[in-house]
């Protein structure tokens, strides 16, 4: 059964393998090898037997072919109601066929499955809330991704992402040393403006353990500084772990079930080691989904909850504003039309809709906050979720899909889109680049820092002497 050198059924587990795949720019050779990658039917049948149980089998069997899911899918809408973008059609012709044929499918079919599971679905789960039977095609596509991954049919970037997690326990090549150094550097950088600001590493028994997205130490270290400043202003007793600091899970996007477990275990180990009262994750949607919502199940926690209360950044921020730990200068509230992007991963899939609106009520001048339509549970995906932002092969498909979000934003008339999610933030940045709406986009942290009242005792000494 021939396998490629780069494209094969074996996940990346070493730095050497990772470098070899990374060196193949854009995955040219990788995708060529995929054309010849044979399906290990026996393995696929075994996987189906072990993992495809009554829920998914019933969904596939019972689908009434009513088409009510069509309009729920932003890909369908953005592609001028192309019927091949109907969620039901997409899943029946991919996973449905694999199950129907009990795994006896060929390479071409697996590539079709890959292109559909990553290029035509972001696993936003919106269709699931429009099906009378409650058939959640996002769940099924996420399952299909797992089947594809186990057979080696996974987009180049996702293979790398999974490998990064397996090698570095982070979605990017950030070592524990890099991470700790970045924290020290960021704390040092802030000393002039924020004397005494610390980013405590590995402090046991802190009130808060903070976890991030590896993009922050790698590309946006100021995000870590901003988090530190806000914890500093709020007077929180907090820490970051030197190991288990990475909250994201490209393994989840890649369908690398084993990798999902490895990654989230590293975070849970940090929780067990440092015993914080609770854990707070950064402004990221899928990190929350992976580590807080799905993660407990990956590692086999029967209560379905992480080892300590684990909340999203917006939950902490709403609490800090509500209790006055952080006070907003009323004169500095936002006085431009603002809207908020509801991240599928913690709004539709974790019910935090009211929390983000509570934050808006504190930071936006009345009358300037405009809801998107539809919103909350029923909001559309930003267009780049599920890992789609990062996959070159489907860039054009993604750009087309983003039209729905573009039109939603235009309809609000907002000049600023607050996107407390790395994926949404990226998608809206790219949306601006592609469609030039003339909007700004932002995480919450920089906005809050600009309008927070700085307590007297935290101000730099020099200023006080003047």
């Amino acid at each position, binding site marked *: 059964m021939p396998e490629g050198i780069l494209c094969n059924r074996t996940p990346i587990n070493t730095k050497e393998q990772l470098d070899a795949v990374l060196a193949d720019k854009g995955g040219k050779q990788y995708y060529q090898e995929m054309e010849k990658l044979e399906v290990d039917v026996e393995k696929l049948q075994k996987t189906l037997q072990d993992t495809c149980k009554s829920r998914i089998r*019933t969904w596939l069997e019972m689908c009434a072919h009513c088409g009510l899911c069509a309009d729920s899918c932003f890909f369908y809408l953005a592609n001028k109601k192309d019927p091949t973008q109907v969620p039901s059609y997409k899943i029946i012709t991919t996973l449905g066929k694999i199950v129907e044929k009990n795994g006896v499918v060929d390479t071409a079919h697996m590539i079709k499955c890959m292109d559909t599971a990553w290029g035509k679905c972001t696993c936003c789960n919106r269709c699931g809330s429009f099906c009378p039977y409650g058939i959640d095609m996002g769940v099924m596509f996420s399952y299909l991704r797992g089947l594809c991954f186990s057979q080696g049919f996974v987009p180049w970037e996702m293979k790398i992402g999974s490998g990064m997690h397996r090698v570095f326990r982070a979605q990017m090549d950030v070592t524990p040393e890099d991470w700790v150094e970045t924290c020290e550097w960021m704390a040092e950088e802030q000393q002039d403006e924020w004397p005494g600001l610390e980013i405590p590493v590995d402090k046991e028994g802190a009130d808060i353990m903070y976890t991030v997205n590896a993009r922050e130490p790698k590309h946006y270290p100021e995000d870590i500084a901003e988090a530190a400043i806000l914890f500093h202003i709020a007077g929180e007793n907090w820490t970051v772990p030197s190991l288990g600091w990475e909250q994201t899970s490209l393994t989840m996007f890649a369908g690398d079930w084993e990798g999902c477990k490895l990654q989230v275990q590293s975070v849970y180990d940090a929780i067990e080691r440092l015993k914080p009262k609770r854990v707070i994750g950064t402004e990221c949607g899928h990190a929350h989904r992976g580590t807080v919502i799905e993660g407990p*199940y990956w590692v086999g926690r029967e209560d379905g909850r992480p080892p300590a209360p684990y909340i999203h950044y917006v939950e902490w921020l709403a609490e800090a504003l509500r209790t006055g730990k952080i006070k907003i200068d009323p004169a500095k509230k936002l006085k431009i039309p603002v809207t908020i992007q509801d991240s599928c991963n913690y709004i539709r899939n974790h019910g935090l809709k009211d929390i983000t609106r509570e934050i808006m009520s504190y930071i936006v001048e009345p009358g300037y906050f405009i809801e998107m339509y539809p919103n909350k*549970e029923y909001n559309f995906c930003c267009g780049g979720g599920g890992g789609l932002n990062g996959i070159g092969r489907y860039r054009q498909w993604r750009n087309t899909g983003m039209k729905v979000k573009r039109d939603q934003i235009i309809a609000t008339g907002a000049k600023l889109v607050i996107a407390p999610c790395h994926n949404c933030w990226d998608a809206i940045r790219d949306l601006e680049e592609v469609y030039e709406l003339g909007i700004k986009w932002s995480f919450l942290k920089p906005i809050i820092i600009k309008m927070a009242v700085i307590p007297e005792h935290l101000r730099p000494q020099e200023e006080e002497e003047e």
Partner: protein
Amino acid sequence: MYNFITGPLLWITFAIFFIGLTVRVVLYIRGLDWRLDRVAYRVYPSLGIKGALSSIFHWLVPFGSHGWRAKPLYTIIFFIFHIGLVVTPLFLAGHAVILKERWGINWPTIPMLLADALTIGVMVTAVFIAIRRIGLPEVRIITTAYDYFLLVLTVLPFFSGFMAAHQFGDYVFWNYTHILSGMALLIAIPFTKLFHVVGYFLSRAQLGMDFGIKRAYKAKGGFAW
């Protein structure tokens, strides 16, 4: 012949129908897996039950869910079709009289006029459903011959029953057609996607538990279906 059909054959039909559905329910529930489905079904019984009931209820009531409200015309057609399908055979005076004659059971009935209206409703909405399958590209692409077969199978007992009840054409022919097609429908239910007569409740309950226990337990009042 008539005695055999309405005697042993009827009993066999009911046995297949009820045993078949019971087996489906048992297999479905046994096939749920908290780790694979990633829902801690057993740990949060109260969140689970609340989530399941809310999920079932909102979709059982016309315009009760966001999904139904998004498609008003379809919702009306859908509910006329399903209410007719369930209410007519269960409470038809012509059926109740058999119960009374054979076992002396006093079964509640609906007026004949209402039964006629419901039956016509089933037939007319079935035609709409078929037209919708042909007319809308997003439905056509997922429609198979099997879907039409099930639609005909479902409507035939109603059509033939209507013909027989009003003595249109050959009564004996329509009456036999009615009884046999009704049996065929009952037998088909456990073995086809018509098993949604119970599958609907199971599937909605499962997703309701998923959102109740895991994906929306932080939302006030649970997921807004």
